């Protein structure tokens, strides 16, 4: 258990509204990641962070922004939600010591109607 929580766990929202998902970790990990999981695509990286206020884009970053104002929290914002952003969102942290292993939170199921 890497001490990762995500909130909310489920959300239904309307097209055009902003949505913020939160990832919280308790073990002072430097690297944090946001993925989305869709059928036929596996998990795709949206954005990642390599430190407080240090973030970069992943492969599917359009329509998403992130912020990391403190080590333990990594926020994912959908500026104006669209139906194509209906998905399951997972946050992950990278293990310590330069390892490539990542450990995932329980996920947030987002439905955009």
């Amino acid at each position: 258990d890497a001490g990762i929580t995500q909130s909310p766990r489920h959300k239904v929202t309307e097209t055009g509204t902003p949505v913020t998902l939160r990832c919280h970790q308790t073990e002072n990990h430097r690297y944090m990641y946001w993925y989305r999981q869709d059928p036929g695509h596996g998990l795709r990286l949206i954005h990642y962070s390599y430190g407080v206020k240090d973030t970069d884009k992943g492969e599917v970053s359009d329509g998403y922004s992130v912020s990391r104002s403190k080590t333990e929290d990594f926020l994912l914002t959908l500026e104006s939600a669209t139906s194509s952003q209906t998905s399951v969102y997972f946050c992950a942290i990278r293990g310590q010591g330069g390892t490539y292993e990542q450990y995932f939170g329980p996920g947030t199921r987002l439905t955009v109607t």
Partner: protein
Amino acid sequence: DQQVKQNSPSLSVQEGRISILNCDYTNSMFDYFLWYKKYPAEGPTFLISISSIKDKNEDGRFTVFLNKSAKHLSLHIVPSQPGDSAVYFCAASGENGSGNTGKLIFGQGTTLQVKP
């Protein structure tokens, strides 16, 4: 462009037999490979990994094989158990000089069903 591919969406095996899950990749810069298991409504769980300097890594019932020349890796589960029924994702990592950000590229996943 799918850099990591799992061409079998599903696999069904009998309890006690071997499960073999396959994964192919195209990017020769990848130098570390991982397998994750995912149950419904849960986050993926790290299973086993292998560095490109090795061709085999074993952990209990799970063994990962890497064939760099074929750009292919496989996960063997022996013996398979009903509790192994899940979606399995392979993932790859490797940087092309931009630093070790640890970004992972995932395959599409293979659903394994182990029948009692």
